[in-house]
């Protein structure tokens, strides 16, 4: 009922390539919802359908109760969309870009100068407002795009990789800003490759891979489902090590990662670590490295797809 973004069997086919298989999402008012997935998973395609830039090939999507296919202008009025790639803005200054877009959102003329300052300030671009766009650095251009997406206080903020290309400082500022907007009542949909970003910001995530949702829920829920903790062992003989430890009572699950790593999901790493070491010694298996961690969203992805998100991302 309070769903702000709702999709049912949403589907997109490019020629004979199925980019989005069938997507069911339910994003509620006030959610900061993360679309997480490797390159080519279909995040941008999903977002472009929700922002009315791509016509769905099947299924339906509603934003703020309006159908993206039949009521696109109602949808456009309510969203602020920040694209994955920065938009080229030619010879204009930052302030001019923002003011022109403010007019395109039909803000009353007398409110425009103040509004422009407020959004520029929010992303830390006010000091650079009167410089030409062409003189901005990549991160500054991205922040300007972000400012433009906020102009009309959208009910729904749609961010495609908001921190791509930003330095640590700016990333933190942008995150802070997204959190503020969230507190301010906006619903945020963000697509990202960065697990830590999703983990920090989102109260819900959907992990998508090859055009379908693999799993969705809150980050902590998903991580709990992985198991309590993960011991990552690096060895030259992962198969022998697996056989040596898989029967142990404390092992919940073992998944082979790349480069001969084993991810051992256990209840309690403080017990498992010495045990793995002991079993390795007993079987004469050379252990190169051993670390343990709280499960991350990467582990969630690995658990559900058998592949590591970072590896998939780096490979394509």
């Amino acid at each position: 009922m309070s769903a702000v973004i709702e999709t049912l069997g949403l589907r997109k086919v490019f020629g004979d390539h199925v980019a989005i298989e069938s997507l069911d999402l339910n994003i509620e008012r006030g959610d900061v919802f993360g679309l997480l997935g490797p390159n080519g998973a279909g995040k941008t395609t999903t977002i472009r359908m929700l922002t009315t830039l791509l016509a769905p090939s099947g299924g339906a999507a509603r934003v703020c109760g309006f159908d993206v296919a039949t009521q696109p202008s109602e949808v456009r009025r309510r969203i602020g969309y920040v694209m994955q790639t920065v938009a080229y803005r030619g010879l204009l200054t930052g302030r001019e870009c923002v003011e022109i877009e403010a007019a395109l959102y039909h803000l009353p003329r007398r409110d425009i100068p103040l509004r422009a300052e407020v959004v520029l300030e929010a992303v830390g671009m006010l000091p650079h407002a009167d410089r030409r766009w062409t003189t901005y650095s990549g991160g500054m251009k991205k922040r300007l795009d972000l400012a433009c997406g906020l102009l009309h206080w959208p009910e729904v903020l749609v961010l495609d990789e908001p921190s791509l290309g930003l330095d640590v400082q700016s990333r933190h500022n942008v995150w802070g800003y997204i959190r503020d907007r969230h507190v301010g009542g906006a619903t945020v949909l963000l697509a990202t490759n960065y697990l830590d970003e999703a983990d920090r910001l989102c109260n819900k995530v959907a992990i998508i891979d090859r055009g379908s949702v693999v799993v969705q829920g809150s980050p902590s829920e998903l991580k709990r489902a992985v198991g309590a903790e993960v011991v990552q062992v690096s060895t030259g003989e992962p198969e022998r090590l697996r056989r040596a430890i898989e029967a142990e009572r404390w092992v919940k699950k073992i998944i082979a990662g790349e480069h001969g790593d084993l991810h051992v999901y256990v209840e309690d790493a403080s017990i498992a670590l010495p045990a793995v070491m002991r079993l390795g010694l007993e079987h004469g298996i050379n252990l190169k490295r051993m670390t343990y961690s709280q499960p991350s969203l990467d582990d969630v992805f690995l658990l559900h797809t058998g592949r590591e998100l970072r590896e998939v991302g780096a490979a394509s």
Partner: protein
Amino acid sequence: MTIEEVAQEERAPVDRAGTEGGDARGRWAQEVMALARRWWIELLRERLNLVFSILQPAIWLVFFGAGVERAIDAEVIGTDDYIGFMLAGVVTFTIVGNGISGAMPLLWDKETGYLDRLMSMPIARSSVIVSRFVFQVAQQTVQILLVVVVAFALGVRIATGPLGLAVILLTAALLTMSVTAAFSALAYAVPQHGTFFAVAGFVTLPLLFMSSAFVPLEAMPLWMEVVARVNPLTYAIEAMRTLVLDGWEARVATSLALLTLAGAACLALGTWQFRKQTGDRTQE
């Protein structure tokens, strides 16, 4: 003031912009002016582009006047005022040239992705093309006034006076509507800017030579005259030439009416292409 305070203060701007009083025309005007402002700023910052595009038609006129006049038979063109005869041709030449260079920002927006940003905003689909039209008309009015001043210096007197000049500007604006819309449609239809320039280059010269820009209709071979008579450029040229050389005549009104029709048709075509070709975006 923080962003949240401002947000509190201006409650739900969305509802205000969206549902309150169907002032759709006011919103549309605001969009067109905002986009036109963007084109203006860019033009003003490209000094060389500005200087050359403003001066070019005047230079053409001088070139034709000084260079070609002697080679022309006054019998053929029906007047011994060759520069006056060429004035309409040069203005038309300029409009077509502006049509091509004027579609470039649209090609850019399409290729750099800014068009996507625009399309995600609640703007009418016609605003982009219409803003180009408004911008081009303003730009070419300056160009035409300059060309007329140069022609005046070379001894041309417009037969219909200042009011005639106003009607010439109106005629030019009507032709610009066709040309801008047609080249915008082409810009959106092509997959890449290379195709745009290939097609534009291919059609432009025939379009100009198959009009009465350089040769009066009566002096053309029959087949050429037939083509020229369905070419909208011819109507604009005939109207402007009559106003310069002959005075107020009924055929000016006929030409203007036909130009208006052609303009409306091209604008419809342009908007349709725009919707169809800007990705497979959702339609309005």
